[in-house]
């Protein structure tokens, strides 16, 4: 089966797709985008989180065929710059995770980055101010991390939220 979709702004086609495989498999194994991680394959850990038509979703829980004609944005799409061999700099959220020491083995990181990006879109991005601890914990409740103990991750989200707010302030 052939699946046509838009990934990180580019129209792409995946061929020889088995109808029962997941969007996560298509991204990693057929489209060469290994950023989204496969940790549990059962919708528990959030490592495979991507934007699916603008809504964060576990890509391991989406059948490949369900992605036909849809827009997907992966962790690779969070980096700034347009890619294709051009310079790619880390996005605000990614930068903050590095600085705050929120990355250890890094397996959970792509999912957390996408989910954090979404949280900041819904809060700072919507002019609602930076999210508090409780809101951050709730937003990230679907992302499991076995290394960090989460504290540094929360720090990173605060850091990124502050920077996004600054950016928004100076940009207007």
């Amino acid at each position, binding site marked *: *089966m052939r699946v046509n979709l838009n990934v990180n702004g580019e129209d792409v086609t995946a061929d020889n797709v*088995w*109808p*029962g*495989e*997941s969007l996560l498999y298509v991204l990693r194994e057929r489209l060469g985008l290994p950023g989204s991680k496969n940790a549990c*394959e*059962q*919708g*528990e850990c*959030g490592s495979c*989180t991507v934007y*699916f*038509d603008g*809504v*964060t*979703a*576990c890509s*391991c*829980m*989406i*059948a490949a*065929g*369900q992605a*036909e004609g849809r827009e997907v944005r992966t962790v690779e799409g969070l980096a700034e710059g347009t890619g294709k061999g051009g310079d790619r700099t880390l996005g605000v959220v990614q930068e903050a995770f590095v600085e705050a020491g929120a990355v250890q083995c890094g397996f959970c990181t792509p999912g957390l980055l996408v*989910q954090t990006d*979404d949280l900041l879109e*819904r809060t700072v991005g919507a002019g609602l101010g930076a999210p508090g601890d409780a809101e951050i914990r*709730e*937003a990230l*409740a*679907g992302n499991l991390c076995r290394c960090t103990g989460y504290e540094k991750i929360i720090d990173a989200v605060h850091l990124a939220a502050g920077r996004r707010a600054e950016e928004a302030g100076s940009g207007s």
Partner: protein
Amino acid sequence: MEFLRPSTLVEALEARSAHPDGVPIMGGTDVMVELNFDKHRPSALIDLTRVPELTEWGWTATARVWAPVSPTPGSSSTCRAGRPRWPRPRGRWPPPDPQPGHGRRQPGRGLPAGEAHPPLLATDAEIELASVRGTRRVRARDFYLSFRTTALRPDELITAVLLPEAAGPQQFAKIGTRNAMVIAVTSFSLALDSERRAVGTGIGSAGPTPLRSEAAEEFLEGEFDWEDGRPLSEAVVRRFGELVASASRPIDDQRGTAEYRRHALSVMARRALSWSVTDYRKGSARCA
């Protein structure tokens, strides 16, 4: 394996009827786990995410029509005074809220841990089932037959869930290790109907099917002050919790022991009752 993409309800029902061994897929929480772990190879997947009739919800004169499948977390979260309070979705697919189209949460599978079930039982909701043969409605209270078995026939799809207009406080409580993505250790739902002077209960994850406690319902219907909603004595609240717990038939599993579940149910039942009585007195079932 075939992948079918019906774009209307009629096409979906035809696909269902032509592929009784096929599996409808929406949120994928159940279906994709089976596929990813190679536990099940259906002859066809029937993608329902493109059927407009199954992704909308709205109001009728007496009921909130809840389409069983909704691809957008949040579409069922709009909450108005007097309407059932569902736990709120947190933007992620599969959402942790009870949207019955979402795999293990959907009534069609009837899994005891599905979070949609207790509120459907408590509020006396109806489930609309359609096939090429026609459409019928089944009360949620008659829908769950035995472990993983419901009244859904092999050629049917759930096309709507009809929730009666709330006439009093409605509560849902769940015990889980986190709010997102985990199924409940056990859950409980309570609805007070001031017009019919009726109590509804629903118990999740504590038996082979979602359950009610008819004894607790009858007991509370007799004890509750339907005129003014005066606070109940501690003995009545405790007895209510005991009756709810004794209606459960839990097992020990990796999420908790049977004993813990029974205890947790009695606590949740007491709390849900106290919240409901307070709401009832305020005369307004506010939206969570």
